[in-house]
């Protein structure tokens, strides 16, 4: 938490990041429901995300945050309602799914880098095999993104030889190499030692600066205040509250939100 607080005060001196949101809709979720067997994980979810908008999702463990964003890039199937990503309806159509996966980047709590490949190979794999790019071009793009996450000198190392913070930055670069339109983050700093959290959050703030559409599941409240256009609070599969960050933290409306915030702040 300490790091998050620091980060918050750093950024507050700069003021809140200007919103890049436009009126173009990137993600639209209507009355979406999902079950795991008999267990109702997501209940009547409605959500609209505009291009360039940055959404932070928080809520207690098991409330369905991961499941929600995994539905958005078709890692999980939903049973009822619609999810429309960049104009494409997610459903059984496999061709649509292939397309969505290349449009939506995702960063996981545990990085999920490929341990048998070097950092550079981790980054060029998608561009070369999915985008059918030549090696030289792919390498160039990869190095450009490694530069952006500030670890170009580590290109020939293996993931296992790097710190958690560095691995997470590589994971972000790996997603960016596919030039996605939307980036999803599932608790990207939860598995990190406290001293590494800031380096990852800084990269994410930079990314937000470029106008990327982002959905971030996180409990880093300082970060949420800095970048979020909207903060969503989830509990037991419901979206309980959606609010501007200032109101969300300063003046939460729902009592469950108040209770949650009092526990984590």
């Amino acid at each position, binding site marked *: 938490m300490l790091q998050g607080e620091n980060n918050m005060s750093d950024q507050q001196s700069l003021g809140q990041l200007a919103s890049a949101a436009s009126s173009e809709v990137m993600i639209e979720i209507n009355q979406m429901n999902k079950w795991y067997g008999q267990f109702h994980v997501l209940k009547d979810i409605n959500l609209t995300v505009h291009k360039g908008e940055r959404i932070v999702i928080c809520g207690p463990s098991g409330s369905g945050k991961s499941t929600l964003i995994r539905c958005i*890039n078709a*890692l999980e199937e939903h049973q009822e309602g619609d999810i429309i990503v960049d104009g494409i309806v997610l459903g059984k159509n496999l061709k649509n799914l*292939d397309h969505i*996966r*290349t449009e*939506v*980047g*995702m960063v*996981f709590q*545990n990085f*999920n*880098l*490929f*341990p*048998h*490949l070097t950092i550079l190979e981790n980054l060029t*794999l*998608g561009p070369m*095999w*999915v985008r059918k790019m*030549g090696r030289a071009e792919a390498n160039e793009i990869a190095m450009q993104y490694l530069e952006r996450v500030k670890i170009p000198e580590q290109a020939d190392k*293996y*993931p*296992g*030889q790097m710190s958690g913070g560095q691995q997470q930055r590589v994971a972000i670069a*790996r*997603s960016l*190499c*596919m030039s996605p339109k939307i980036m999803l983050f599932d608790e990207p700093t939860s598995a990190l030692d406290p001293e590494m959290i800031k380096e990852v959050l800084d990269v994410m703030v930079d990314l937000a600066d470029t106008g990327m559409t982002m959905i971030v599941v996180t409990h880093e409240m300082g970060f949420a205040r800095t970048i979020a256009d909207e903060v969503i609070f989830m509990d037991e599969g419901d979206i309980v509250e959606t609010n501007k960050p200032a109101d969300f933290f300063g003046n939460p409306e729902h009592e469950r939100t108040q209770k949650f915030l009092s526990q984590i702040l």
Partner: protein
Amino acid sequence: MGIVKAEKTPARVAPIFETSVVGWLRKNLFSNTFNTILTFITLYIIYLTISGVFTWGYVDATFVADNRRECYDNSLTGACWAGVIDWFDNIFYGRYPRDQIWRINFGGLLLALWMAPMWMGPVKGKVLIGISVVAFYPFLAGYLFSGGDKGMFMQVMIALALVAFIINMANMVIGLSNKQSLRQFLIRVLGQSTAPDKTQRNILLILAVAAFGAAFFWQSGWGVEGVSWTKWGGLFLTLVISGIGIASALPGGIILALGRRSKLPVLRVLSTGFIEVFRSVPLITVLFMATTMFPLFMPEGFVLNKLVQVIIAVVLFNACYMAETVRAGLQAIPKGQFEGAHTIGLGYWGTMGLIIMPQALKHMIPNIVGSFIGLLKDTTLVSIIGLFDILGMLRSISKDQPWLGLHKEPLVFGAILFFIICFSMSKYSRHLEVKLSAGSRH
């Protein structure tokens, strides 16, 4: 008030017990009276065994003799290696015509040359080399060993194999001298480094086609006399059967394992059934079934020779075992790897081929080598259904007139041979494991 340690504690040398030989001996072998007694008893047993074997196998042994009688005349208690030595060619090559044995040696040499680059650090494209061995070498070797007339198909495959071999060798030379792949080298020599990928690819394609034409022309004027498979035998036959078994068990096992994990019910049930049936019967049964029942399923007038039937049986049997090894390896890969692959847009085959299989195979190396060792040893079962593999040959020495009744020495010799082969394989697998895990730590 807190307690503060004023100085840093310097690191000290470990106690003598932990490091010196004497310390190790004291700790492990002579720590108390009972242990000391055990140590001496064990040493005595080892001494008895080794000296016994040494006297029998070397001091009292006969190495030069024309028949068993002469061995006995020389020494009654020593081994009669003369019989084994006399049968050397048979043990290694079976009844292959003596003046044609060079073909087998040449085939072995080709294989060694073909695979050698895989062990050379700077050479590029190791996976392709591996695939080219499995895909093309069998045709070249097959013709080399059996000879005779080449059909059109064989001619094409032989030409392809030759091209693959030459490319591989050139790639090795370039890799060792320039640290480049053959492709990079050719493109640079032709001055096309800046040309777009497509042009480069077309140029290489033209070169490959030209090479194929030349190879095809050359091989059409070349041939070796036919040698019937019934003349194949000895270690050569054992290695042919187990070599084909090894080369196809892994790909077959991967296909079956993927089938078993497939989302399509038909595929899954078929693969599972196939695997379970073969795994629940002993190899010898499969061999008998293959040689007696297989012909029944074949169309009228279609006769497969026994060797092919045996090879099919060995391949299927081992693919099923390998499938389970592969499945275990696949299960060990965390779900996150599939999800990571998914988010960069890789489909099923991309995920399996680029992300999952390479990692799974790495974990599986000890098990795979274990299966290969088992396969090599199991192959000796074919002597039961009448093929003269190495075991068959070793046992027929005792039926040869001059060496009548000579059982022990050939079998001891066979055991030593197998031990050398299997032990080096298992040592090598240990080495691989260490090397690969050093490359990427989790």
